[in-house]
């Protein structure tokens, strides 16, 4: 099989030489190198094996994609190498090889893909195969996918395949089908209507043999979903419901309870103003193609967190991750631009983004008086759909104001207040609920044409966990090619260890190529998924990152 593919590639090479007028070749490449330096303040050294200091001292990740397209045909290949993988990457990334290859053609409305592919049904809560290279996440399917539109406005997709697990494939077999109908396209009378309606439904099932001596496990696990989107001018409304049949797995402690997920969202927006609200409920929805897997491995679906995604350094110390065994919550966001000339708007207007989100546990009750909650080999628990559980997992309120003061100066001010249930979300030992307040002030000052300096000042105050943090950053950019930056995170509020994480970085950009060099220390982190906890150690060293495309 592999030889055949290599042969095809060489053939397409010679075809290229002849048919270059019609075909297109393109690709991209990224490489990250890191040299680790021992650091006694962080206890990051060879003497301390649990610090994770790599005995190789030099680690490198890299990948390259090449794609060839001609008329209705396209093919691509990706080579990845982890020699060895950078600290913090899932430990399965060891070695090198071709991890992605496909051929796709489109004829008479039938779109066929063979090989590896990514796919999403609706919001992804029933099925989503995607890649996030920087997190080391990749659950691509290897198999066959068909897309067909039998009638105007009706779209069908079906796929069968196994998922990627580092350099191997999962044992579980996934079969899925999805149908979507755009009522306005299908029915002539509705094509001019302002209300646009889309309906969709999917069915996904996975197969894995039962070799367990203790339990009688279901070999075929099925799940179905239905969704709808309604759009009326400035209003938008969407809802999706997913139901999964008994799926005892390592993550849910082998209970036979069915699972479901519900996501609903609505928004109104017009120029200068936008507001959105969303609510969701997840109950036992961890869905993998192998029942004993953990962490980020072989996940079939995607359960989105409904909390605001932050980019500022201190705001990422307590990040939220969906608790797939059960949670419910909501989010509301307001986007507004104060117009020029108004009192708050000033000369060029002021932007406002306010966001509120929270997440609670679902209500779990025992199945009967003899069976404790979540007991292995039982139905686990019962849960009332509308009841909110007692435990609060997360709550956040944030406000961001951005204003251009004059031709040279802009600033963005942010305030974030967070309640973070560290035991439930990330598995931290007895730190309980972490209450934190973060203020960020970012300014951008244009020194002269093409030269600009950006500064960030951040402060996090909390009485729990590691205490207060202070962060400062100054970045000098010369458009369009250069940047230099210096930053430091200082954990001054820590009673045991007031650690400082300074970093120096510089980079060069040209067209699609980007080079970035940085030297300094990085904070540690722990994360737990489905009963297994991983530690990303604090580290110190020099890193070089190169990315390009053609």
């Amino acid at each position, binding site marked *: 099989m592999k030889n055949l593919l290599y042969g095809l590639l060489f053939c397409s090479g010679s075809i290229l030489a002849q048919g270059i007028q019609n075909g297109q070749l393109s690709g991209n490449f990224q490489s990250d190198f890191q040299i680790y330096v021992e650091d006694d303040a962080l206890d990051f050294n060879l003497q301390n094996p649990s610090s994770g200091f790599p005995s190789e001292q030099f680690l490198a990740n890299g990948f390259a994609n090449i794609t060839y397209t001609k008329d209705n045909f396209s093919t691509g290949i990706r080579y990845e190498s982890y020699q060895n993988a950078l600290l913090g990457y899932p430990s399965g990334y060891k070695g090198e090889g071709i991890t992605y290859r496909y051929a796709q053609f489109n004829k008479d409305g039938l779109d066929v893909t063979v090989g590896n592919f990514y796919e999403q049904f609706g919001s992804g809560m029933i099925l989503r195969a995607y890649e996030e290279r920087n997190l080391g996440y990749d659950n691509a399917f290897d198999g066959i996918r068909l897309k067909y539109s039998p009638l105007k406005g009706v779209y069908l997709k079906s796929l069968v395949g196994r998922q990627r697990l580092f350099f191997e494939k999962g044992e579980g077999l996934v079969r899925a089908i999805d149908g979507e109908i755009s009522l306005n396209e299908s029915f002539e009378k509705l094509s001019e209507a302002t209300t646009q309606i889309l309906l969709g439904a999917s069915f996904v099932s996975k197969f894995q043999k039962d070799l367990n*001596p203790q339990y009688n496990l279901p070999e075929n696990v099925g799940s179905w979903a239905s969704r709808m989107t309604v759009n009326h001018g400035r209003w938008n409304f969407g809802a999706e419901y997913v139901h999964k049949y008994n799926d005892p797995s390592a993550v849910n402690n082998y209970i036979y309870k069915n699972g479901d997920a519900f996501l609903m969202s609505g928004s109104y927006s017009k120029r200068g103003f936008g507001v959105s609200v969303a609510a969701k409920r997840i109950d036992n929805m961890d869905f993998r193609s192998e029942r004993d897997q953990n962490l980020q491995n072989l996940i079939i679906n995607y359960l989105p967190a409904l909390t605001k995604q932050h980019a500022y350094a201190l705001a990422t110390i307590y990040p939220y991750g969906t608790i797939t065994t059960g949670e419910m919550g909501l989010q509301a966001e307001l986007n507004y631009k104060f117009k020029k000339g108004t009192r708050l708007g000033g000369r060029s207007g002021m932007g406002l983004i306010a966001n509120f989100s929270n997440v609670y546990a679902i209500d779990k009750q025992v199945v009967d008086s003899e069976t404790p909650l979540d007991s292995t080999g039982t139905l686990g628990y019962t849960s009332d759909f509308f009841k909110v559980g007692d435990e609060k997992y997360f709550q956040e309120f944030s406000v961001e104001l951005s204003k251009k003061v004059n031709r040279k100066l802009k600033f963005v001010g942010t305030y974030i207040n967070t309640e973070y249930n560290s035991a439930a979300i990330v598995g931290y030992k007895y730190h309980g609920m972490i209450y934190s307040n973060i203020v960020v002030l970012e300014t951008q000052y244009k020194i002269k044409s093409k030269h600009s300096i950006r500064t960030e000042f951040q402060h996090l105050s909390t009485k729990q966990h590691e205490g207060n943090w202070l962060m400062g950053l100054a970045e000098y950019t010369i458009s369009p090619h250069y940047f230099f930056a210096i930053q430091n995170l200082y954990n001054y509020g820590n009673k045991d260890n007031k650690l400082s994480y300074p970093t120096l970085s510089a980079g060069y950009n040209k067209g699609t190529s980007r080079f970035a060099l940085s030297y300094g220390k990085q904070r540690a982190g722990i994360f737990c998924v489905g009963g297994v906890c991983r530690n990303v150690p604090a580290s110190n060293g020099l890193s070089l990152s190169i990315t390009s495309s053609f």
Partner: protein
Amino acid sequence: MKAVKLYSIIATVLTISIFSCDIVEEPFMTVQEEVSDSCEAFIFSPIENPIKKVLLEDYTGQQCGNCPRAAEKAVELQEIYGDQLVVMAVHAGFFASTSSSYPTDFTTEAGDDWDTNFGNSIAGNPNGQIDRVNFPNGHIYQYSQWGQIIDEQLQSEPQIGIQIMASHNEAANLICVDTQTEVYNTIDHDLNITVVILENGLISNQTDYSVPSQHIEDYEQNHVLRKSLNGSWGENLGQESYLEHDFIINRYSTEVSTEWNIENMLVLAFVSNPETYEVLQVEEVHITE
């Protein structure tokens, strides 16, 4: 293009100059302890009904909140398989580190070396290995998979048998260990024997996510690896290949540490293939007076 050249030169120079220098100091060989004269040699008779026993290594840590679940699973499986399942708890990695609330150190040199080689703690705790099968791709198993793999391993007939005699010589403050490895089928590769000491009934702190305070002060740690008597990777049994009825005797002694409670201690020996690390047979006994 110039910038690319510059950056590639910098990267190459840095990598060559900084990372590739490991300077090793004396002693160069890992030292094996000599057997003390105070230990008397023991004479074994052959095993009457040899059975295959399976080694379960539970990689765990006192700060790992989900690890008590894995320990409970090991207990469940011992109730099913009895003597045929031998459990060893290896404390290693980030979650086995000490802190002000977790002052006891259960890590060992052997455990650290195994963890670095097999990558158990970086894959996320708890997890384990069964007879160290499927190294390097697929040797780490979640505790929900243990039952299935142990079952599979117990289907095979024993190729070798191990007997251990372990005694405590109070006067000399030594533990004396004698092992006899018997061969039942032809084996045409190298074999290594590793002999370690475990301790049961150690009461200490443990993080446990199933209790409201997330912390247990008087948790009972069992099967804890304390020390290897012949290095992290054991020693070669001495022959290039082995025939039916071959037997090899090994003898060890070690000083008793003041931290140990001899009554709760066991000696565990396993014979493995030094190339694939796969364990062919394991045996454990309590230390007698």
